[in-house]
């Protein structure tokens, strides 16, 4: 009889999303122009062209004659 209280650990008491440790959580200076510039950089990478080719070869892409 009686109640046993299992105390929450310090981690379990944290609220919200736990911080990751691999980088400081004081982030970068994200701006609209900065993201636009980064977008152009990402899109120039060969892996993104490969991705486009894969997607265009998939059933998710329908060329005019196949649209019905």
């Amino acid at each position: 009889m009686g109640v046993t209280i299992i105390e929450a650990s310090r981690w379990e008491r944290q609220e919200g999303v736990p911080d990751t440790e691999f980088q400081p959580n004081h982030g970068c200076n994200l701006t609209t122009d900065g993201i636009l510039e980064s977008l152009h950089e990402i899109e120039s990478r060969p892996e993104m062209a490969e991705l486009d080719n894969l997607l265009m070869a998939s059933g998710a892409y329908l060329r005019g004659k196949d649209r019905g």
Partner: protein
Amino acid sequence: MAEYGNIKWQPILKDVAEKISTTYSVELILDEAIVLEAEQRIKESLDNLGFDRPNVAKVAGQVAFWLRKLKPLSIAPSSKNYFRLVNELAALRIGLAICNCYKDDCSKDKEVQLHSRILRDWVTSFRYHSHSPHSSMTSFELLMCDN
């Protein structure tokens, strides 16, 4: 104001849409009302995390989640070709661009590692499977880890 509060997502989305339109030869419609809704949701979600300056992976995860959920882009009826994954691809591209901002200014030395086949699966999964804001954030956090 939190750092991300000043970011305007419409020009970013418009830029991505133009690139997709050109690459895939599709005519796209960008719904401004949905973009405004997404901006509000993104800001609220990031505010609720409780960090003044959440890391880029957290921002990327929230942005990608809301864009693929609310779907501001659609294929114009006059488009000759059709691409089913336009919102999902736009969401992922913007998420990657946000993560890519981390180098130079911060401590990540290497470029974000990209694998086209994994990205293809990720884009497809965005459309057909369940994703939460937190699972999206975790995916980008894993992408950003240095091995």
